[in-house]
Protein backbone atom coordinates (compact mmCIF):
# COMPACT_ATOMS: atom_id res chain seq x y z
CA UNK A 1 0.00 0.00 0.00
CA UNK A 2 1.39 3.36 -0.95
CA UNK A 3 2.08 6.14 1.51
CA UNK A 4 -1.12 8.06 2.30
CA UNK A 5 -1.20 11.64 1.08
CA UNK A 6 -2.35 12.81 4.49
CA UNK A 7 -2.46 10.91 7.73
CA UNK A 8 -3.50 11.63 11.31
CA UNK A 9 -2.21 9.41 14.11
CA UNK A 10 -3.79 9.57 17.53
CA UNK A 11 -4.61 13.27 17.31
CA UNK A 12 -5.81 14.77 20.55
CA UNK A 13 -6.71 18.38 21.23
CA UNK A 14 -7.82 19.64 24.60
CA UNK A 15 -9.11 23.08 25.52
CA UNK A 16 -8.86 23.03 29.28
CA UNK A 17 -11.24 20.31 30.37
CA UNK A 18 -12.94 20.11 26.98
CA UNK A 19 -11.67 17.35 24.67
CA UNK A 20 -12.35 18.66 21.18
CA UNK A 21 -10.43 15.98 19.33
CA UNK A 22 -10.29 12.55 20.93
CA UNK A 23 -7.63 10.18 19.61
CA UNK A 24 -8.42 10.55 15.91
CA UNK A 25 -6.53 8.40 13.43
CA UNK A 26 -7.30 8.21 9.75
CA UNK A 27 -5.67 8.43 6.35
CA UNK A 28 -6.43 10.04 3.02
CA UNK A 29 -4.93 8.27 0.03
CA UNK A 30 -3.47 9.98 -2.99
CA UNK A 31 -6.19 11.03 -5.43
CA UNK A 32 -8.91 10.15 -2.91
CA UNK A 33 -12.36 11.63 -2.77
CA UNK A 34 -13.09 11.48 0.93
CA UNK A 35 -15.72 13.17 3.07
CA UNK A 36 -15.82 13.98 6.77
CA UNK A 37 -19.29 14.29 8.21
CA UNK A 38 -20.73 14.64 11.68
CA UNK A 39 -23.24 16.60 13.69
CA UNK A 40 -22.68 20.22 14.65
CA UNK A 41 -20.01 20.66 17.28
CA UNK A 42 -18.41 17.32 16.46
CA UNK A 43 -15.06 19.04 16.04
CA UNK A 44 -14.68 18.93 12.27
CA UNK A 45 -13.20 22.38 11.89
CA UNK A 46 -10.91 21.79 14.88
CA UNK A 47 -9.64 18.70 13.13
CA UNK A 48 -8.98 20.68 9.97
CA UNK A 49 -7.11 23.29 12.00
CA UNK A 50 -4.99 20.53 13.54
CA UNK A 51 -4.21 19.01 10.16
CA UNK A 52 -3.21 22.35 8.66
CA UNK A 53 -1.17 23.45 11.64
CA UNK A 54 -3.28 26.41 12.71
CA UNK A 55 -3.80 24.57 16.00
CA UNK A 56 -1.16 22.54 17.80
CA UNK A 57 -2.28 19.10 18.95
CA UNK A 58 -2.14 18.15 22.61
CA UNK A 59 -0.93 14.76 21.43
CA UNK A 60 -0.58 12.80 18.23
CA UNK A 61 0.98 13.30 14.83
CA UNK A 62 0.16 14.66 11.41
CA UNK A 63 1.92 13.18 8.40
CA UNK A 64 2.00 14.69 4.95
CA UNK A 65 3.16 12.30 2.21
CA UNK A 66 4.69 10.23 4.97
CA UNK A 67 6.65 13.12 6.49
CA UNK A 68 5.95 14.15 10.06
CA UNK A 69 4.74 17.72 9.94
CA UNK A 70 3.31 17.94 13.44
CA UNK A 71 5.74 20.70 14.35
CA UNK A 72 5.88 22.39 10.98
CA UNK A 73 4.35 25.86 10.65
CA UNK A 74 1.12 26.06 8.70
CA UNK A 75 2.46 28.27 5.93
CA UNK A 76 5.29 25.78 5.46
CA UNK A 77 2.78 22.93 5.14
CA UNK A 78 1.14 24.85 2.33
CA UNK A 79 4.44 24.94 0.51
CA UNK A 80 4.68 21.19 1.06
CA UNK A 81 1.39 20.64 -0.72
CA UNK A 82 -1.39 20.95 1.84
CA UNK A 83 -4.10 23.50 1.11
CA UNK A 84 -7.49 24.32 2.56
CA UNK A 85 -10.58 26.45 2.15
CA UNK A 86 -12.49 28.07 4.98
CA UNK A 87 -16.05 27.58 6.08
CA UNK A 88 -16.55 31.34 6.04
CA UNK A 89 -14.86 32.93 3.05
CA UNK A 90 -11.38 34.16 3.82
CA UNK A 91 -10.60 36.33 0.87
CA UNK A 92 -8.83 39.59 0.15
CA UNK A 93 -11.61 42.17 -0.15
CA UNK A 94 -9.78 44.70 -2.28
CA UNK A 95 -7.70 42.38 -4.42
CA UNK A 96 -9.26 41.14 -7.64
CA UNK A 97 -9.78 37.54 -8.76
CA UNK A 98 -6.78 38.00 -11.00
CA UNK A 99 -4.51 39.39 -8.31
CA UNK A 100 -5.32 36.91 -5.55
CA UNK A 101 -4.14 33.83 -7.43
CA UNK A 102 -1.10 35.78 -8.63
CA UNK A 103 -0.13 35.96 -4.98
CA UNK A 104 -0.54 32.24 -4.42
CA UNK A 105 1.32 31.31 -7.58
CA UNK A 106 4.25 33.64 -6.85
CA UNK A 107 4.60 32.19 -3.38
CA UNK A 108 4.55 28.71 -4.77
CA UNK A 109 7.15 29.18 -7.46
CA UNK A 110 9.53 30.99 -5.18
CA UNK A 111 9.22 34.54 -6.46
CA UNK A 112 7.24 35.71 -3.46
CA UNK A 113 10.15 37.69 -2.09
CA UNK A 114 10.88 39.44 -5.38
CA UNK A 115 10.54 43.15 -4.76
CA UNK A 116 11.60 44.46 -8.12
CA UNK A 117 9.57 42.87 -10.91
CA UNK A 118 5.88 43.45 -11.40
CA UNK A 119 3.64 40.86 -9.74
CA UNK A 120 2.34 38.42 -12.30
CA UNK A 121 4.77 39.74 -14.85
CA UNK A 122 5.85 36.37 -16.12
CA UNK A 123 3.85 34.73 -18.86
CA UNK A 124 3.71 31.35 -17.13
CA UNK A 125 1.95 33.00 -14.23
CA UNK A 126 -0.45 34.80 -16.54
CA UNK A 127 -1.26 31.54 -18.31
CA UNK A 128 -1.90 29.77 -15.06
CA UNK A 129 -4.17 32.53 -13.80
CA UNK A 130 -6.12 32.41 -17.05
CA UNK A 131 -6.60 28.68 -16.81
CA UNK A 132 -7.67 28.89 -13.17
CA UNK A 133 -10.17 31.69 -13.71
CA UNK A 134 -11.63 30.00 -16.77
CA UNK A 135 -12.00 26.69 -14.98
CA UNK A 136 -14.04 28.39 -12.27
CA UNK A 137 -15.96 30.72 -14.56
CA UNK A 138 -14.48 33.84 -13.01
CA UNK A 139 -12.77 35.32 -16.04
CA UNK A 140 -15.55 37.83 -16.67
CA UNK A 141 -15.12 39.36 -13.20
CA UNK A 142 -11.38 39.23 -13.04
CA UNK A 143 -10.93 42.96 -12.57
CA UNK A 144 -13.57 43.51 -9.91
CA UNK A 145 -12.48 43.78 -6.26
CA UNK A 146 -13.43 40.57 -4.51
CA UNK A 147 -15.88 42.30 -2.19
CA UNK A 148 -18.04 43.19 -5.21
CA UNK A 149 -18.53 39.61 -6.34
CA UNK A 150 -21.65 37.62 -5.57
CA UNK A 151 -21.40 35.21 -2.67
CA UNK A 152 -21.39 32.19 -4.95
CA UNK A 153 -18.57 33.62 -7.05
CA UNK A 154 -16.63 34.43 -3.88
CA UNK A 155 -17.04 30.85 -2.77
CA UNK A 156 -15.68 29.69 -6.10
CA UNK A 157 -12.73 32.03 -5.69
CA UNK A 158 -12.20 30.57 -2.24
CA UNK A 159 -11.68 27.16 -3.83
CA UNK A 160 -9.72 28.54 -6.76
CA UNK A 161 -7.19 30.20 -4.46
CA UNK A 162 -6.58 26.96 -2.60
CA UNK A 163 -6.05 25.24 -5.91
CA UNK A 164 -3.60 27.90 -7.05
CA UNK A 165 -1.05 26.56 -4.62
CA UNK A 166 -1.04 23.26 -6.62
CA UNK A 167 -1.69 21.16 -3.55
CA UNK A 168 -1.26 17.42 -3.25
CA UNK A 169 -3.94 17.44 -0.57
CA UNK A 170 -6.92 19.76 -0.48
CA UNK A 171 -9.16 20.20 2.55
CA UNK A 172 -12.53 21.78 1.74
CA UNK A 173 -14.47 23.14 4.71
CA UNK A 174 -18.18 23.21 3.75
CA UNK A 175 -17.68 24.65 0.27
CA UNK A 176 -21.41 24.90 -0.42
CA UNK A 177 -22.31 26.59 2.86
CA UNK A 178 -24.39 29.69 2.45
CA UNK A 179 -24.42 29.58 -1.32
CA UNK A 180 -27.78 30.55 -2.82
CA UNK A 181 -29.67 27.90 -4.81
CA UNK A 182 -28.99 29.32 -8.22
CA UNK A 183 -25.24 29.27 -7.68
CA UNK A 184 -24.88 25.87 -6.02
CA UNK A 185 -24.63 24.06 -9.31
CA UNK A 186 -21.46 25.99 -10.10
CA UNK A 187 -19.90 24.82 -6.85
CA UNK A 188 -20.86 21.21 -7.49
CA UNK A 189 -19.52 21.38 -11.01
CA UNK A 190 -16.25 22.92 -9.79
CA UNK A 191 -15.83 20.15 -7.22
CA UNK A 192 -16.46 17.47 -9.81
CA UNK A 193 -13.84 19.01 -12.08
CA UNK A 194 -11.03 19.09 -9.51
CA UNK A 195 -7.79 17.44 -10.67
CA UNK A 196 -7.85 13.71 -10.13
CA UNK A 197 -4.33 13.50 -8.72
CA UNK A 198 -5.17 15.76 -5.80
CA UNK A 199 -6.38 14.03 -2.62
CA UNK A 200 -9.52 15.77 -1.41
CA UNK A 201 -11.06 15.73 2.03
CA UNK A 202 -14.47 17.34 2.05
CA UNK A 203 -16.30 18.49 5.16
CA UNK A 204 -19.95 18.93 4.51
CA UNK A 205 -23.39 18.90 6.04
CA UNK A 206 -25.17 18.57 2.72
CA UNK A 207 -25.71 14.83 2.35
CA UNK A 208 -26.58 15.03 -1.36
CA UNK A 209 -23.22 16.60 -2.03
CA UNK A 210 -21.42 14.11 0.16
CA UNK A 211 -22.94 11.00 -1.34
CA UNK A 212 -22.47 12.32 -4.87
CA UNK A 213 -18.87 13.23 -4.35
CA UNK A 214 -17.26 10.86 -1.89
CA UNK A 215 -15.76 7.44 -2.43
CA UNK A 216 -15.06 7.11 1.26
CA UNK A 217 -16.77 8.70 4.27
CA UNK A 218 -15.52 9.26 7.81
CA UNK A 219 -17.97 10.11 10.58
CA UNK A 220 -16.86 12.33 13.45
CA UNK A 221 -18.97 12.51 16.60
CA UNK A 222 -17.98 14.39 19.76
CA UNK A 223 -14.37 14.56 18.62
CA UNK A 224 -14.05 10.87 17.95
CA UNK A 225 -14.13 8.91 14.71
CA UNK A 226 -17.19 6.78 15.00
CA UNK A 227 -17.27 5.06 11.63
CA UNK A 228 -15.46 4.95 8.33
CA UNK A 229 -16.18 3.27 5.02
CA UNK A 230 -17.77 3.37 1.58
CA UNK A 231 -20.90 5.54 1.18
CA UNK A 232 -23.39 2.69 1.16
CA UNK A 233 -21.80 1.14 4.27
CA UNK A 234 -22.12 4.43 6.10
CA UNK A 235 -25.67 4.97 4.89
CA UNK A 236 -26.62 1.58 6.27
CA UNK A 237 -24.71 1.94 9.55
CA UNK A 238 -27.12 1.89 12.51
CA UNK A 239 -25.00 4.03 14.77
CA UNK A 240 -24.65 6.76 12.13
CA UNK A 241 -28.38 6.79 11.54
CA UNK A 242 -28.96 7.04 15.28
CA UNK A 243 -26.72 10.05 15.53
CA UNK A 244 -28.41 11.82 12.66
CA UNK A 245 -31.92 10.65 13.47
CA UNK A 246 -31.34 11.63 17.05
CA UNK A 247 -30.35 15.03 15.80
CA UNK A 248 -33.46 15.21 13.62
CA UNK A 249 -35.68 14.29 16.54
CA UNK A 250 -34.51 17.39 18.31
CA UNK A 251 -35.21 19.46 15.23
Amino acid at each position, binding site marked *: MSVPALEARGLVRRFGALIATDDVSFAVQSGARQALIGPNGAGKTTLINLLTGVLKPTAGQVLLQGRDVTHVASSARVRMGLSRTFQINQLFPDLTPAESPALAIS*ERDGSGADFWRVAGGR*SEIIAEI*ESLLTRFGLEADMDQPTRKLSYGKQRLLEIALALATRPRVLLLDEPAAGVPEEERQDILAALAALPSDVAILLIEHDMDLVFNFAERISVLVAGRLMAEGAPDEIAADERVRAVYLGEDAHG
Partner: protein
Amino acid sequence: MSAPAATATMGRVAAHLHRRARWRWPEIAFWLAVLAVIFALPSRAAIINEALIAGLFALSLDLILGLTGIVSLGHAAFLGLGAYAAAVLASQGFADPLLGLAFGAGIAALVGLVTAPLLLRGGDLTRLMVTLGVSLMLGELANRNGWLTGGADGLNFSIGPVLGLFPIGFTGQRNAALYSFVVLFILFAIARRLAHSPFGLALTAIRENRLRAGALGVGASRRIVAIYTTAAAYAGAAGALLAETTQIVSLDLFDFHRSADVMLMLIIGGAGYLYGGIIGAAAFIVLRDVISAATPEYWEFWIGLALVILVLAGRDRIAAAPRRLITLVAPRVTRGGVA
Protein backbone atom coordinates in the same frame (compact mmCIF):
# COMPACT_ATOMS: atom_id res chain seq x y z
CA MET B 1 -12.19 27.21 -24.04
CA SER B 2 -10.76 27.75 -27.50
CA ALA B 3 -7.19 28.89 -27.93
CA PRO B 4 -7.91 32.41 -29.23
CA ALA B 5 -10.38 33.00 -26.37
CA ALA B 6 -7.78 31.80 -23.90
CA THR B 7 -5.19 34.11 -25.38
CA ALA B 8 -7.62 37.01 -25.21
CA THR B 9 -8.25 36.31 -21.57
CA MET B 10 -4.56 36.07 -20.89
CA GLY B 11 -4.17 39.46 -22.47
CA ARG B 12 -6.80 40.84 -20.15
CA VAL B 13 -5.08 39.31 -17.15
CA ALA B 14 -1.75 40.77 -18.12
CA ALA B 15 -3.19 44.21 -18.78
CA HIS B 16 -5.07 44.12 -15.50
CA LEU B 17 -2.05 43.16 -13.42
CA HIS B 18 0.09 45.80 -15.07
CA ARG B 19 -2.51 48.52 -15.06
CA ARG B 20 -0.96 50.57 -12.35
CA ALA B 21 2.63 49.54 -12.61
CA ARG B 22 3.40 51.90 -15.44
CA TRP B 23 4.06 55.53 -14.67
CA ARG B 24 1.21 57.64 -16.00
CA TRP B 25 1.41 61.25 -16.96
CA PRO B 26 -0.39 62.68 -13.87
CA GLU B 27 2.29 61.15 -11.68
CA ILE B 28 5.06 62.59 -13.82
CA ALA B 29 3.26 65.91 -13.74
CA PHE B 30 3.12 65.75 -9.96
CA TRP B 31 6.86 65.32 -9.60
CA LEU B 32 7.63 67.97 -12.19
CA ALA B 33 5.31 70.33 -10.34
CA VAL B 34 7.15 69.73 -7.08
CA LEU B 35 10.45 70.39 -8.82
CA ALA B 36 9.02 73.54 -10.34
CA VAL B 37 7.95 74.81 -6.92
CA ILE B 38 11.52 74.48 -5.67
CA PHE B 39 12.80 76.67 -8.49
CA ALA B 40 9.87 79.06 -8.44
CA LEU B 41 10.02 79.89 -4.74
CA PRO B 42 13.69 80.09 -3.77
CA SER B 43 12.91 82.21 -0.72
CA ARG B 44 10.75 79.44 0.70
CA ALA B 45 13.40 76.79 0.22
CA ALA B 46 13.66 76.01 3.91
CA ILE B 47 10.03 75.15 4.38
CA ILE B 48 9.91 73.26 1.09
CA ASN B 49 12.86 71.23 2.29
CA GLU B 50 11.08 70.52 5.54
CA ALA B 51 7.99 69.38 3.67
CA LEU B 52 10.00 67.06 1.43
CA ILE B 53 11.75 65.46 4.39
CA ALA B 54 8.46 65.10 6.26
CA GLY B 55 7.08 63.52 3.10
CA LEU B 56 9.84 60.95 3.10
CA PHE B 57 9.23 60.23 6.76
CA ALA B 58 5.50 59.80 6.13
CA LEU B 59 6.26 57.58 3.11
CA SER B 60 8.30 55.34 5.37
CA LEU B 61 5.35 55.01 7.72
CA ASP B 62 3.07 54.25 4.77
CA LEU B 63 5.21 51.22 3.96
CA ILE B 64 4.35 49.61 7.26
CA LEU B 65 1.02 51.16 8.16
CA GLY B 66 -0.63 51.69 4.80
CA LEU B 67 0.81 48.79 2.86
CA THR B 68 1.20 46.12 5.51
CA GLY B 69 -1.21 47.21 8.24
CA ILE B 70 1.37 47.35 11.04
CA VAL B 71 0.59 50.11 13.55
CA SER B 72 3.38 52.03 15.21
CA LEU B 73 3.45 54.78 17.82
CA GLY B 74 7.22 55.03 17.81
CA HIS B 75 8.32 55.58 14.24
CA ALA B 76 10.14 58.72 15.31
CA ALA B 77 12.80 56.45 16.78
CA PHE B 78 14.21 55.87 13.31
CA LEU B 79 14.05 59.53 12.43
CA GLY B 80 16.12 60.35 15.47
CA LEU B 81 18.54 57.49 14.87
CA GLY B 82 19.18 58.54 11.29
CA ALA B 83 19.64 62.17 12.24
CA TYR B 84 22.04 61.48 15.08
CA ALA B 85 23.98 58.88 13.14
CA ALA B 86 24.61 61.35 10.33
CA ALA B 87 25.40 64.16 12.78
CA VAL B 88 27.83 62.10 14.83
CA LEU B 89 29.57 60.91 11.69
CA ALA B 90 29.94 64.48 10.48
CA SER B 91 31.17 65.72 13.83
CA GLN B 92 33.91 63.09 13.63
CA GLY B 93 35.15 64.62 10.41
CA PHE B 94 33.26 62.62 7.79
CA ALA B 95 31.39 65.50 6.29
CA ASP B 96 30.26 63.94 3.01
CA PRO B 97 26.45 64.10 3.02
CA LEU B 98 25.93 60.97 0.93
CA LEU B 99 28.04 58.99 3.36
CA GLY B 100 26.00 60.39 6.23
CA LEU B 101 22.80 59.52 4.40
CA ALA B 102 23.84 55.92 3.91
CA PHE B 103 25.12 55.66 7.46
CA GLY B 104 21.94 57.14 8.94
CA ALA B 105 19.73 54.82 6.91
CA GLY B 106 21.94 51.87 7.79
CA ILE B 107 21.90 52.44 11.54
CA ALA B 108 18.15 52.91 11.53
CA ALA B 109 17.71 49.76 9.45
CA LEU B 110 19.84 47.80 11.88
CA VAL B 111 17.71 48.86 14.83
CA GLY B 112 14.58 48.18 12.79
CA LEU B 113 15.81 44.69 12.02
CA VAL B 114 16.52 43.97 15.66
CA THR B 115 13.22 45.31 16.97
CA ALA B 116 10.99 43.91 14.21
CA PRO B 117 10.51 40.51 15.87
CA LEU B 118 8.79 42.31 18.75
CA LEU B 119 5.95 43.18 16.41
CA LEU B 120 5.15 39.66 15.40
CA ARG B 121 3.31 38.38 18.41
CA GLY B 122 0.26 39.88 20.02
CA GLY B 123 -2.08 42.24 18.23
CA ASP B 124 -2.38 45.92 17.43
CA LEU B 125 -2.39 47.13 21.01
CA THR B 126 0.81 45.25 21.78
CA ARG B 127 2.42 46.71 18.70
CA LEU B 128 1.45 50.23 19.67
CA MET B 129 2.96 49.77 23.11
CA VAL B 130 6.13 48.07 21.96
CA THR B 131 6.92 50.63 19.30
CA LEU B 132 6.21 53.43 21.74
CA GLY B 133 8.39 51.79 24.35
CA VAL B 134 11.31 51.29 22.00
CA SER B 135 11.26 54.89 20.79
CA LEU B 136 11.15 56.15 24.36
CA MET B 137 14.02 53.91 25.34
CA LEU B 138 16.11 55.21 22.49
CA GLY B 139 15.21 58.79 23.34
CA GLU B 140 16.20 58.22 26.93
CA LEU B 141 19.46 56.58 25.86
CA ALA B 142 20.21 59.53 23.61
CA ASN B 143 19.47 61.86 26.48
CA ARG B 144 21.70 60.07 28.94
CA ASN B 145 24.64 59.58 26.65
CA GLY B 146 25.60 63.15 26.06
CA TRP B 147 29.19 62.21 25.34
CA LEU B 148 27.94 60.79 22.05
CA THR B 149 24.83 62.78 21.28
CA GLY B 150 25.61 66.07 22.92
CA GLY B 151 22.56 65.61 25.11
CA ALA B 152 20.33 68.61 25.46
CA ASP B 153 22.98 70.89 23.97
CA GLY B 154 23.07 69.14 20.64
CA LEU B 155 26.03 68.53 18.39
CA ASN B 156 28.35 70.82 16.51
CA PHE B 157 29.00 69.59 13.03
CA SER B 158 29.24 70.82 9.49
CA ILE B 159 28.34 69.15 6.25
CA GLY B 160 30.36 69.21 3.10
CA PRO B 161 28.91 69.78 -0.36
CA VAL B 162 26.95 67.05 -2.11
CA LEU B 163 29.17 65.19 -4.56
CA GLY B 164 31.78 67.78 -3.72
CA LEU B 165 29.95 70.33 -5.86
CA PHE B 166 26.73 71.56 -4.30
CA PRO B 167 26.94 73.17 -0.87
CA ILE B 168 23.85 72.61 1.23
CA GLY B 169 24.63 74.75 4.26
CA PHE B 170 23.03 78.03 5.18
CA THR B 171 23.97 79.60 1.89
CA GLY B 172 22.75 76.64 -0.13
CA GLN B 173 19.14 76.30 0.94
CA ARG B 174 17.81 75.71 -2.52
CA ASN B 175 20.47 73.08 -3.06
CA ALA B 176 19.35 71.49 0.16
CA ALA B 177 15.78 71.33 -1.10
CA LEU B 178 16.95 69.83 -4.39
CA TYR B 179 19.08 67.31 -2.53
CA SER B 180 16.08 66.26 -0.45
CA PHE B 181 13.93 66.15 -3.57
CA VAL B 182 16.30 63.82 -5.39
CA VAL B 183 16.60 61.49 -2.40
CA LEU B 184 12.83 61.49 -1.90
CA PHE B 185 12.18 60.79 -5.56
CA ILE B 186 14.63 57.93 -5.82
CA LEU B 187 13.39 56.28 -2.63
CA PHE B 188 9.81 56.82 -3.75
CA ALA B 189 10.46 55.17 -7.09
CA ILE B 190 11.95 52.17 -5.35
CA ALA B 191 9.01 51.97 -2.96
CA ARG B 192 6.63 52.17 -5.90
CA ARG B 193 8.28 49.24 -7.62
CA LEU B 194 8.20 47.35 -4.38
CA ALA B 195 4.48 47.93 -3.95
CA HIS B 196 3.79 46.38 -7.35
CA SER B 197 6.09 43.43 -6.94
CA PRO B 198 5.15 39.98 -5.65
CA PHE B 199 6.60 41.09 -2.31
CA GLY B 200 4.30 44.10 -2.25
CA LEU B 201 1.36 41.91 -3.20
CA ALA B 202 2.17 39.63 -0.29
CA LEU B 203 2.25 42.60 2.09
CA THR B 204 -1.15 43.76 0.86
CA ALA B 205 -2.47 40.26 1.40
CA ILE B 206 -1.05 40.20 4.92
CA ARG B 207 -2.83 43.44 5.62
CA GLU B 208 -6.16 42.37 4.15
CA ASN B 209 -6.33 38.87 5.54
CA ARG B 210 -3.31 37.52 7.33
CA LEU B 211 -5.00 34.21 8.02
CA ARG B 212 -5.62 33.51 4.34
CA ALA B 213 -2.21 34.80 3.33
CA GLY B 214 -0.68 32.18 5.61
CA ALA B 215 -3.00 29.57 4.17
CA LEU B 216 -1.57 30.38 0.74
CA GLY B 217 1.98 29.89 1.88
CA VAL B 218 2.97 33.45 2.71
CA GLY B 219 5.39 33.49 5.62
CA ALA B 220 4.12 36.67 7.26
CA SER B 221 6.91 36.95 9.82
CA ARG B 222 9.75 37.21 7.35
CA ARG B 223 7.89 39.66 5.14
CA ILE B 224 7.01 41.89 8.08
CA VAL B 225 10.58 41.96 9.33
CA ALA B 226 11.77 42.81 5.83
CA ILE B 227 9.37 45.71 5.29
CA TYR B 228 9.87 47.06 8.80
CA THR B 229 13.61 47.15 8.25
CA THR B 230 13.09 48.89 4.92
CA ALA B 231 10.72 51.42 6.46
CA ALA B 232 13.24 52.05 9.22
CA ALA B 233 15.93 52.70 6.61
CA TYR B 234 13.67 55.18 4.83
CA ALA B 235 12.90 56.99 8.07
CA GLY B 236 16.59 56.99 8.94
CA ALA B 237 17.32 58.56 5.57
CA ALA B 238 14.76 61.26 6.35
CA GLY B 239 16.47 61.88 9.66
CA ALA B 240 19.87 62.10 8.02
CA LEU B 241 18.53 64.58 5.48
CA LEU B 242 17.07 66.64 8.30
CA ALA B 243 20.35 66.75 10.17
CA GLU B 244 22.38 67.51 7.07
CA THR B 245 20.20 70.21 5.60
CA THR B 246 19.44 72.04 8.83
CA GLN B 247 22.75 71.30 10.56
CA ILE B 248 20.81 70.78 13.79
CA VAL B 249 19.92 67.71 15.78
CA SER B 250 17.88 67.73 18.94
CA LEU B 251 16.51 65.16 21.33
CA ASP B 252 12.94 66.06 20.46
CA LEU B 253 13.35 64.03 17.28
CA PHE B 254 12.65 61.00 19.47
CA ASP B 255 9.59 62.60 21.04
CA PHE B 256 6.21 60.96 21.01
CA HIS B 257 4.69 63.95 19.26
CA ARG B 258 6.88 63.35 16.22
CA SER B 259 5.40 59.89 15.88
CA ALA B 260 1.92 61.32 16.35
CA ASP B 261 2.55 64.09 13.80
CA VAL B 262 3.73 61.74 11.08
CA MET B 263 0.74 59.52 11.64
CA LEU B 264 -1.53 62.52 11.27
CA MET B 265 0.22 63.49 8.02
CA LEU B 266 -0.34 60.04 6.63
CA ILE B 267 -3.95 59.94 7.72
CA ILE B 268 -4.67 63.35 6.16
CA GLY B 269 -3.24 62.34 2.83
CA GLY B 270 -4.56 58.80 2.94
CA ALA B 271 -2.61 55.66 3.63
CA GLY B 272 -1.89 52.82 1.27
CA TYR B 273 -1.12 54.43 -2.05
CA LEU B 274 2.30 55.95 -1.33
CA TYR B 275 1.43 59.49 -2.40
CA GLY B 276 -0.67 60.09 0.70
CA GLY B 277 2.27 60.65 2.99
CA ILE B 278 3.84 63.24 0.71
CA ILE B 279 0.59 65.08 0.14
CA GLY B 280 -0.33 64.92 3.81
CA ALA B 281 3.09 66.14 4.88
CA ALA B 282 2.91 69.10 2.54
CA ALA B 283 -0.59 69.96 3.78
CA PHE B 284 0.51 69.59 7.38
CA ILE B 285 3.60 71.76 7.05
CA VAL B 286 1.76 74.47 5.15
CA LEU B 287 -1.15 74.48 7.60
CA ARG B 288 1.20 74.63 10.52
CA ASP B 289 3.00 77.56 9.01
CA VAL B 290 -0.26 79.41 8.42
CA ILE B 291 -1.85 78.64 11.77
CA SER B 292 1.30 79.19 13.79
CA ALA B 293 1.55 82.65 12.36
CA ALA B 294 -1.92 83.35 13.68
CA THR B 295 -1.90 81.51 17.01
CA PRO B 296 1.59 80.17 17.74
CA GLU B 297 0.98 78.60 21.16
CA TYR B 298 -2.24 76.84 20.33
CA TRP B 299 -1.19 75.01 17.19
CA GLU B 300 -1.51 71.76 19.16
CA PHE B 301 -5.16 72.44 19.82
CA TRP B 302 -6.01 72.55 16.12
CA ILE B 303 -4.08 69.36 15.45
CA GLY B 304 -6.01 67.66 18.23
CA LEU B 305 -9.29 68.95 16.87
CA ALA B 306 -8.37 67.77 13.39
CA LEU B 307 -7.63 64.30 14.71
CA VAL B 308 -10.88 64.11 16.65
CA ILE B 309 -12.94 65.23 13.68
CA LEU B 310 -11.08 62.94 11.31
CA VAL B 311 -11.74 59.92 13.44
CA LEU B 312 -15.36 60.75 14.18
CA ALA B 313 -16.13 61.46 10.56
CA GLY B 314 -14.45 58.28 9.46
CA ARG B 315 -10.99 58.25 8.05
CA ASP B 316 -12.17 56.50 4.92
CA ARG B 317 -14.80 59.01 3.97
CA ILE B 318 -12.52 61.99 4.35
CA ALA B 319 -9.87 60.59 2.12
CA ALA B 320 -12.39 59.07 -0.30
CA ALA B 321 -12.73 62.02 -2.66
CA PRO B 322 -9.07 62.71 -3.30
CA ARG B 323 -8.51 58.99 -3.35
CA ARG B 324 -10.89 58.50 -6.22
CA LEU B 325 -8.82 60.93 -8.24
CA ILE B 326 -5.66 59.22 -7.25
CA THR B 327 -7.09 55.84 -8.24
CA LEU B 328 -6.61 56.86 -11.82
CA VAL B 329 -2.89 57.15 -11.50
CA ALA B 330 -1.31 55.71 -8.44
CA PRO B 331 -0.29 52.28 -7.15
CA ARG B 332 -2.85 49.93 -5.65
CA VAL B 333 -5.45 51.97 -3.81
CA THR B 334 -7.50 50.21 -1.21
CA ARG B 335 -10.78 51.14 0.28
CA GLY B 336 -10.04 50.20 3.83
CA GLY B 337 -6.50 51.49 3.87
CA VAL B 338 -5.41 51.01 7.37
CA ALA B 339 -5.95 48.91 10.49
